[in-house]
Each structure stands twice: as structure tokens, then as C-alpha cells.
């Protein structure tokens, strides 16, 4: 609080001849009860800043925008940056579609500006700097797991770019996310974790969930409906799904205190808007669950192809907190009926086969729409040690061959780059499309194995980007005041919405040598050499002499006497 007041004071002291760039901070939390009894909480913190990082004079006065990220953007000429850390896998069939999708592990994709001359070197430096900012081992991102997609991952912000040579994408499926990643993430927020919605981000509860994902998205967006000027947008998102049974209770009842072990007491003073949305679309008359404290604010938004109704709590109003000065939302279930709308698109991936030599990767994509077909762009990045046989690639839907309208394949190079396979497939309505490709496992050099090789090696998730037909008309007007969760993916046409799905990562075992063998071999060889050669050498070169044993004392005295007498000794 004091910091905020101090900053305001400083702002007034700055001479008015230098106009300060305008910045704005908004925070929101969306809570969506899921049909399985779990609950999905999605935090979004957005900072908008009207400034130009790319100009000659370096930006030096940071207010709401974190300085570490601002310096990263200007030093590495970043056009867009998306980084996410996820623990767990998003179960589309049980939980529906997430607001912000992310694959298990760490994922980083960056669009660089056209002025960058050596994209690979800049990428390497950027990953090292980000690994220091987020306390993650992002420095393991190198050319062996970086790909350059040719059609996926178009920029989410402003820009009509066709040259994909400025795009880099990498995943680290093995990356763990824990409190040490959350701590620096929270420090990037203007209010830190001291005020506003971020007080709810307590690691003990967040990591005791079925799914936890924290991400940072930086891009340029239009400032207004004319879109003649742009501003930088930084979105920090946390998506968590809390398990009903994990939290140890019998009744189906959720509250802010149970989910986060905290309640809300105030909005962030630096935020222009701070709202809490509860999805009550399945509960129009209040027959499914009961929400307390009650609120009269309602809002409707078209998100993920569906029109959803939300109860809104505005945290900037004092009345929201009531007389106890704290907001502890309570959602109590009354009945267990209701079916979840089946998601229109979901995917699975698994490894088939047996043994440690060959295998087969199967990717299944389900189109659950009854009569519409839609295109899907599948991006697969497979590490080099699984040698794909692309001649065995087959795409079948409903038993028949389905030829993709666009295939882009970049073969791998051992220890240099991974396989990249991108395909544009049209999924027929109400069908399952199966993509299979066979592979062979390579034998790595013994220094390339990690310290725990028997755990297996991870293959990153496939990315499926698609334009799914929506049931209601999407809002293409990008300037109307919309809640943050509905304005993440830009919308160009009304009849469909863009969605990105990640499949499971794969865990494959490579043929692992016995690491104690060099030691065993050395011992055995040395023993054989010592015993075999040593004994042979002794036999050949040893000469034997007869030696008299030492005579006893009596005999020695007798010999001395005999020597004196001149008689030969005994």
C-alpha cells in the first residue's frame, strides 16, 4: 500500500512536459464448477502499457509493467512471448475446454521482430535469461528440442506475418513446477501477492490440485477500435483444477477458503478492475447449486463457442465484502443431475508396440460434432532418438484413408535437431481420426543418459490447432469491453472459434545399458591379466635355489666347535 502511495507521489513530481505512457492493470478470477465435482479456477492478471520498447531511447521508468520482462523484450527484440509451466494433464472429456490451454511441463514459444539477424543465438540467450527469471531449467532448451513450425502458432497479437523463420517453439515435458517457480511469478505482479486476487495464490493448496498451470503471455494488442496504435499486453494466468476427493470432504461444497485457504479482503489498489466471475449457466434457477453471498450482478459472455452466464462480484466496491470485510464465496450443491456438454474436439496419444527396439505412435482425434467437419492442424515434434519411419505414416478416419491437405516434414539430425511433422487434416463429422507412425529407438552414447535413465525419455505433447464451429455467434468486435477470459484468442469470424489442444506427452524407454559394466570389465580384465599372465611370467622367469633351513641352537654351537676342531660341519 505504501509503495502504491509513494509511486503516486512520484508521478505527481514528474514534470508534465514529458507525457507518461499510460498503463492499466486488471485482474479477474473465473470459477467454473465442473460436472465431476471438481472446480476450475482461472486467474488472469493483465497489464496494458502504451509504450514502445523498440525505440532507441531505452525505457527507464517502469510502473505496473515488471522491469525484468520489459528489459527482456527490448534486449531480445521480442514481438511475442508465451511461456507456461504446467503440472498435470488437462482432461478434456471430464473438464471441458480450458480458457488458456497448456501442455504438461514447460512450453516456450517466441516470435522475434524482423530486425533480429541471428534468431538461433538470440533464442539461446533468451532461454538462459528466462531460466534465471523463473527459476526453471529452461537452459536445457537447445537445438535438440527447438522447432520452427511452418503453419502453427501464428502470432496471437497484432501482426500480419508470414515469415516463420522468426518463430521458435520448444517444450520441456520433464520440467517440474513448484513453489520456486511461483515465487518469482508472483513478484512480477504490481501488487505482488499482498493485495487483490493474488493473495489466494498459496502454494500449499495450488500444488495439491489435479492440474496447475501458470503462464506469462506478452503480445501487442490494439488500443482501440480503430487499431491505429498498439500497446503491449502482459497477461499472467493461473489455471487450477481442485479435486473434490483430495481435499478430504464428503459433501459437495466449495468455498474460497477451502480452495485457497484464504479469503479476499480487498482489491489490488493499482487495479482498474478486479472481478470475480462464477459460471452459473448450468444453474439458471438455482436448482443445482446455491451461491452465497448472493450478488445481483450478472454478465453474459460468449466464450469457447458457447454463451455462458456469470455471477459477478466486483471487488473494487466496498459492499462486496460485507460487514465482515472479507469475501468467502460458498458454493453448495443441492442436486447431482446435469450432463456436461461433450467437447467437440479432443485428442489422445499413446505408444503401441512391445520391446525396446521399435514402436508406434498413435494419435487419435475425435470430432464430436454431429454434422460439421472442420480442419485441424497437427504439430508433432519428436526427439531425434526416436527415428520415425515416415513411409509408415497413415491417417485414417472411419476406416478410410484421409489424405491431409498440407504436410510439412523436417527430418531429424542426430544430436542436432528433432523431427517436425505438421499436417492439416479435415476431420469428418462424428468420427475418430487416427494418425500412426512407426519408429525405432536409437542407442545413445553412454554419457548422454540422464542420471535416472530407467525412468524413460519424454516426448513432448502434440499440438492440435483448430477452428471449431461454435453453437452461438462469436463476438468479432475486438474493442468492446470484454472480460479477460473471453478475449485471449482473437476472433476473426463469427461461426467458429480457435482452440488449441495438447495431447498427453509420451514416456518411452530407450535401451539402457548397464552402467556398472565398465567397472566390471576393468575388474575382470585386470584379474585375468594379473592371474593369467602373472603366473605364466613367474613360471617362465623364476629360478629356484635350494636353501638350507636355519639350524637349531644346539646344532649351531656344535658346528662352531667342529669348525674350531677343523672337522666338516653337521
Amino acid at each position, binding site marked *: 500500500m505504501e509503495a502504491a502511495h509513494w509511486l503516486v507521489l512520484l508521478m505527481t513530481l514528474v514534470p508534465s512536459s514529458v507525457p507518461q505512457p499510460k498503463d492499466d492493470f486488471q485482474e479477474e478470477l473465473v470459477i467454473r464448477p465442473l460436472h465431476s465435482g471438481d472446480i476450475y479456477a482461472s486467474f488472469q492478471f493483465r497489464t496494458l502499457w502504451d509504450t514502445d520498447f523498440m525505440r532507441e531511447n531505452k525505457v527507464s521508468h517502469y510502473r505496473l509493467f515488471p522491469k525484468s520482462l520489459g528489459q527482456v523484450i527490448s534486449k531480445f527484440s521480442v514481438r511475442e512471448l508465451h511461456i507456461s509451466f504446467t503440472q498435470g494433464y488437462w482432461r478434456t472429456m471430464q473438464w471441458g475446454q480450458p480458457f488458456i490451454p497448456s501442455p504438461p511441463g514447460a512450453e516456450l514459444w517466441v516470435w522475434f521482430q524482423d530486425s533480429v539477424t541471428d534468431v538461433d543465438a538470440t533464442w539461446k540467450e533468451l532461454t538462459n535469461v528466462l531460466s534465471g527469471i523463473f527459476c526453471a531449467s529452461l537452459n536445457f532448451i537447445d537445438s535438440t528440442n527447438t522447432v520452427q513450425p511452418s503453419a502453427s502458432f501464428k502470432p496471437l497479437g497484432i501482426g500480419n506475418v508470414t515469415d516463420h523463420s522468426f518463430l521458435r517453439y520448444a517444450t520441456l515435458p520433464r520440467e517440474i513446477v*513448484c513453489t520456486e517457480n511461483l515465487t518469482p511469478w508472483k513478484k512480477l505482479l504490481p501488487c505482488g501477492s499482498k493485495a487483490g486476487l493474488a493473495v489466494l495464490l498459496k502454494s500449499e493448496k495450488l500444488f495439491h490440485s489435479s492440474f496447475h498451470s501458470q503462464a506469462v503471455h506478452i503480445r501487442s494488442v490494439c488500443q482501440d477500435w480503430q487499431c491505429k496504435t498498439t500497446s503491449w499486453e502482459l497477461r499472467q494466468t493461473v489455471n487450477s483444477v481442485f479435486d473434490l476427493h483430495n481435499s478430504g470432504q464428503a459433501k459437495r461444497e466449495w468455498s474460497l477458503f477451502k480452495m485457497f485457504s484464504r479469503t479476499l479482503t480487498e482489491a489490488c489498489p493499482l487495479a482498474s478492475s478486479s472481478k470475480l466471475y462464477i459460471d452459473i449457466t448450468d444453474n439458471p434457477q438455482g436448482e443445482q447449486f446455491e451461491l452465497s453471498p448472493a450478488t445481483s450482478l450478472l454478465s453474459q459472455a460468449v466464450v469457447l463457442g458457447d454463451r455462458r452466464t456469470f455471477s459477478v462480484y466486483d471487488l473494487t466496491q466496498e459492499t462486496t465484502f460485507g460487514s465482515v470485510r472479507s469475501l468467502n464465496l460458498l458454493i453448495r450443491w443441492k442436486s447431482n443431475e446435469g450432463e456436461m456438454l461433450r467437447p467437440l474436439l479432443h485428442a489422445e496419444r499413446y505408444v503401441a508396440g512391445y520391446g525396446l527396439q521399435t514402436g508406434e505412435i498413435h494419435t487419435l482425434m475425435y470430432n464430436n460434432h454431429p454434422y460439421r467437419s472442420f480442419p485441424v492442424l497437427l504439430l508433432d515434434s519428436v526427439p531425434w532418438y526416436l527415428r520415425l519411419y515416415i513411409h509408415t505414416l497413415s491417417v485414417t478416419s472411419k476406416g478410410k484413408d484421409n489424405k491431409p491437405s498440407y504436410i*510439412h516434414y523436417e527430418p531429424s539430425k542426430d544430436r542436432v535437431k528433432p523431427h517436425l511433422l505438421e499436417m492439416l487434416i479435415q476431420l469428418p463429422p462424428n468420427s475418430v481420426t487416427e494418425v500412426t507412425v512407426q519408429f525405432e529407438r536409437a542407442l545413445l552414447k553412454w554419457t548422454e543418459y540422464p542420471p535416472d535413465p530407467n525412468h524413460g525419455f519424454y516426448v513432448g505433447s502434440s499440438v492440435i490447432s483448430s477452428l471449431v464451429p461454435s453453437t452461438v455467434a462469436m463476438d468479432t468486435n475486438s474493442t468492446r469491453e470484454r472480460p479477460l477470459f473471453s478475449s485471449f484468442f482473437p476472433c476473426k469470424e463469427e461461426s467458429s472459434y480457435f482452440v488449441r489442444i495438447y495431447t498427453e506427452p509420451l514416456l518411452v524407454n530407450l535401451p539402457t545399458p548397464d552402467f556398472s559394466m565398465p567397472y566390471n570389465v576393468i575388474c575382470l580384465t585386470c584379474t585375468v591379466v594379473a592371474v593369467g599372465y602373472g603366473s605364466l611370467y613367474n613360471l617362465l622367469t623364476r629360478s629356484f635355489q635350494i636353501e638350507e633351513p636355519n639350524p637349531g641352537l644346539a646344532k649351531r654351537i656344535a658346528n662352531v666347535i667342529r669348525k674350531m676342531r677343523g672337522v666338516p660341519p653337521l
Partner: protein
Amino acid sequence: MLALLMLNILAYMTPNPDKTQIIIHLLSVISQNSAGQFFSSGHTNNWAVLVCTSRFWFNYRHVANTLSVYRSVKRLGIPDSHIVLMLADDMACNHRNPKPATVFSHKNMELNVYGDDVEVDYRGYEVTVENFLRVLTGRLPPSTPRSKRLLSDDRSNILIYLTGHGGNGFLKFQDSEEISNVELADAFEQMWQKRRYNELLFIIDTCQGASMYERFYSPNIMALASSQVGEDSLSHQPDLAIGVHLMDRYTFYMLEFLEDIHPASKTNMNDLFKVCPKSQCVSTPGHRTDLFLRDPGSVLITDFFGSVRKVELTMDAINLTDPIKQMEENPVNGEEQKEVYSYADQLPVSEIIHQKPKQKDWHPPDGFILGLWTLILLVFFKTYGIKHLKHIF
């Protein structure tokens, strides 16, 4: 005392205008004398390098050891920017941990040493012998971020804490490689020659830990180990809910000892040497002070574990540099922006289908191909003779 008495007498006796000047002069004399006491240790900043070298869930206690030292060091004032924390495996968010995001040091889950504000600099596979030695000697690749560097200078006191599985003369890193006591001694000598430390406190909690400090030969190093050569360091107590041993005995009693230390305490190293006698630890802790110049009795615990900032008093005036001039902002609304921006199409199907394949850059043929063709040509001309050349061309 005498000075204060004199001050009082003088203040009473002299007339007012001169009184203040004399008082100031006397005060400065007194403070400069006590200022001399501030510099008895000779260091101006503190660093800590805390390393846990074991992987796998059953080595939970090594991570708990390192985190409890991290906690004490942070509590006594060393900031995260001056701590290099290396944990070889993640125990807090391990799927076998019944209470995620926690690492406990006492059974019945009394003390969570992981906490809410922790920054791990090297984790997982990054904790290797090479990275450890590079951190110590400072020879890191240029793109390494600051939080992963040990930016100490010749007035830094560094605390180095190692824990894991070890043996006579070596310490095992992640079950796949070892660091020997000779390498460690050489690394410290490199640090000394590059003036990277003022004084170094080396604490090791492994089996046969005393063997690791036998080979040190650089000055100003004090070393403590949890067991002598030939002895094993034992773990303290298991927790039945978590299922593994939570801490090692030596670090457990050291943590208890450190919990009583606060930034202003005057406890010295001799008390630290007495931590965990044989009755509690079963092994005999050892220490080595022959390379250390000062008497251990005059070394405060907070010289290494805390970050006591020294204040330099000066009576000189210092000229500040000229204030930074604000750059003139170019008028933003100078001319009308003609171009209108728009968002990119996320899945432009027709564009993708008609996308021309990326023209790969032409590279001159590889050495292998050149060699192959040369071989073919040589064999051909060898077999058929050079006179056929004119028939071909």
C-alpha cells in the same frame, strides 16, 4: 566511559556556542574508535552456496538438510540474490509427497523448511560436478543469468554447505558422478588466487565427511564435517506419514543451534564446533581450523550465516553526479498513422494449403559426398584409362 565522563564535564563547563562544536568533535573521536571495531572481521558481504547432491525420493533428508540451512541463512539476513541453492531433485512437488509444496524437517510436520518464498537456482539435472565447480570458480558461459552466478569479491565471506552420499575422499553427485577432495581443494585454491573470497566456511554432512577437507591448502578456510573417516553419518528420524527419514542428525542439531541465533547474537565458532557431540550424533563431528588466520573464538556465527551490513562512517562530503536528463519525447501524434493494424488469422486454411515449401538454402556438397564422387571417378579412370577422357567430354 572516560570519554563520556569528560564529555559531560566539558558540556557543563563551556559556554553554549562552543559547546556543540566540542561535543561533535568528541563524538566523532568516540565513534571512530568504535568504528575500528566494526572492521575486525574484514568482510563486507556474505554469500552462501548450498548444494544437495542426491536424487530420488528416499534421499528426502538431503534436500531437507539443505533447505533448513537455506532457511536459517535467509532468516539471518542473506538475500536470495546472494544465495546459490542447488537441489538435485524435487521433493516438495514430487508425486510421492503426501503434502505437496512442503518439505519437513521435524516429524509430525512441525516445521516446513520449504516455505512460501524459495528460489532454487540449480535444480534437477543441472546439479552436476561441472556446474558446481563453475559456480565456485566463476567460469560460467556469458549468457548465465545473475541468479546462477557466485559474484563474490575479495571481501566476501562465503558459506559452502554440501550434503549427500559420500565416501573416503569423494562425494557422489546424483548417483552418476563424483567429486573428489583433491578437485575441491584445487577449486578453492583457484578461488583464492582469483581473490573470490575473504574467508570461507565449508560444512559437509555426508558419510566420512572429514576426508573431504583433508586436502585443503588455501588460506582462510575453516571446515566442519559431520563424521570422521571410517564413520557413517546417520539420519535422524523417520516420519511415518511421509515414509522416509526427514533429516540427518548433524544438520538437525545444527538447525536447532541456528534457530537460537539472531542477527545480533555474539555466539562464536567454538560453540558451533560443539554442536552434535558423539552422544547425539553417533558419529564424531570434526573440524579444521589450521588454515584460518583468526582465532575461531573470535569468529561470530553471523560472520558466515548472517549478512551483517557494515557501516562506514565518513566526515567527507561527496559530490553527486549531475542528474540524468530526461530524453525529449518525440511528439507521438505528429502525423496520422496511415496503416491500420489487425490481428493475424490463427488458422488460415487456404493460405496454408497453398503455402510454397520453404526453399532450403543451398549448401555446397558435404565432404562425404565429395569424397564419394572422387572415389568413383578415380576408380573409373583407373579401370578404363585416361585416354577415354576425350570420348566422354
